[in-house]
């Protein structure tokens, strides 16, 4: 029984991962923008499934709640309102292709540069590196949510707060842009 559950967990991770990739490909390839959003939604749900198969139920649920329940709905909202066919005729997307390729290449390079050690180095065997006295608290945490919050609000408080400030910057920027257009 125990053995079976463990293998199911590992297999499920692979299955959800492949499904998430399929969703992503569907999202890029779909002709209609709403279908793209549906593919994106599917990918988000599958990523949540990946988290769940790794026993990270808090992250999985937060993934669905934030991405599937909030952000993708907003995407859908915008896509439904904007007539994308108008832009297709003007060739806006074609103009952007060249710069998009450059951006993707730079992004990939930066990603590999930052996460090289994490992906291929020694660090990949350790999931989360905390100070020993905090790691002890992590071990006694009975729930997933407790473990995540202890990591976030003790050792990684500053990066966490900086991240939220970045989000705030995006929010304020959006308001400023929208206001300027109206005046």
């Amino acid at each position, binding site marked *: 029984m125990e053995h079976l559950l463990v293998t199911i967990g590992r297999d499920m991770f692979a299955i959800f991962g492949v499904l998430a990739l399929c969703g992503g490909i569907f999202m890029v390839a779909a002709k209609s923008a709403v279908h793209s959003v549906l593919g994106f939604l599917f990918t988000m749900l599958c990523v949540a499934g990946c988290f769940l198969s790794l026993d990270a139920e*808090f992250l999985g*649920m937060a993934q669905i709640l934030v991405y*599937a329940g909030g952000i993708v709905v907003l995407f*859908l909202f915008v896509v439904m309102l904007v007539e994308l066919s108008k832009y297709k005729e003007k060739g806006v997307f074609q103009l952007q292709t060249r710069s998009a390729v450059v951006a993707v290449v730079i992004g990939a390079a930066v990603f590999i540069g930052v996460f090289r050690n994490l992906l291929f180095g020694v660090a990949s065997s350790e999931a989360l590196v905390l100070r020993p006295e905090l790691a002890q608290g992590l071990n006694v945490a009975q729930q997933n949510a407790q473990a995540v919050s202890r990591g976030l609000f003790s050792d990684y408080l500053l990066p966490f707060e900086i991240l939220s400030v970045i989000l705030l910057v995006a929010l304020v920027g959006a308001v400023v842009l929208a206001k300027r257009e109206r005046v």
Partner: protein
Amino acid sequence: MPTMNLTQTMVMGLIQVVAVLILIFVMVPLLTFAERKVIGYIQVRLGATRTAGGHVGITGALNRGMWAMGKVPMLSILRGLPVFVADILKLILKEDIIPAKAERSVFTLAPIISVLAAFGVFSAIAFYPGALFTFPARFPIVGGLPFMGFISDVNVGVLYILALSSVGVYGIVLGAWASNSKYPLLGGLRSAAQIISYEVPLTLSLLTPVLLAGSLNFKDLSVRLSTGADMHWLAIFPLFVGFFVYTTCGFAETNRTPFDLPEAETELVAGFHTEYSGMKFGFFYLAEYTNMIVVSCFASAFFLGGYYLLPFGLQRFIPASVPFLGQPSILFFFLKVFTILFAFLWVRATVPRYRYDQLMDVGWKYLLPLTLVNLFAAALIRFAF
């Protein structure tokens, strides 16, 4: 609990799922019936409270006899039953039309998403914190196993339920878009804006009990809140405000009056489901009423004391040694669920619909600051005592 092998786990799971499905399929039709009758009595609508069958056959003879005696035939609780039966028959038998210009795949997908999201939520809802009864040993596979009051004991149950219900909005938005028609699209946009707006205070108001009791597990949270274990008596105030905000947002999330702008029939024909007919429409209908039950379960579990008699953590004044009133019971839980469901119907019959800007004002300018202050108060109480 005795340890179970894989077959037993799966069979028990199946039995519990079927039991909850039966519960849903009994409660939803009864709820629509109750809705007709309650609104019928409040607004003096004659059909729903008087209709009692035809004038032919055995029942017809009975009816004629009772009319002759100057009485409305049939027991008053059964009056209006023919309307209800006709309603369900119509839903099942009506032709299922997909408009020619509609996006077929998404059009079909939308009601499925709605119903799946609404039903999936029940797998984490606990109707009773422990075993309801134990199967006698003479049953082949499940003999000696307890029948629990919940399907699964998810340790982030509250988050799971919030996540799934937030996925439910896709049903409405996609259905509206796929209909390829003006009124559904307007209804769908309204709905998306409304549900996103009200999800914020809804989630924040649920954080109040989570903060006070310190658990994300549905039944743990409910039991801790109602018995008031390690909770200061001041906690009753944030809980009360939280209850008020939660039920208000619950009305908005389920698209009920006074927040039923997505299907405001005087402005938008029938809103997002204008182009739907037959059982596809029935699915949206089913999802809406199931969501009402979910909201009622939540409100009763986290604010009204759940499986115990008294709400808001007042249960601590009744010692556990008192035979019936001091013990948890599934009856108390359903009593509260039905009370809130009745409030749903009551509000629908009495409160007029909000204007769109008023709806947004209520959500963002009143409910959101109120919940934030409330959450802060709860945190203070938790911190100070």
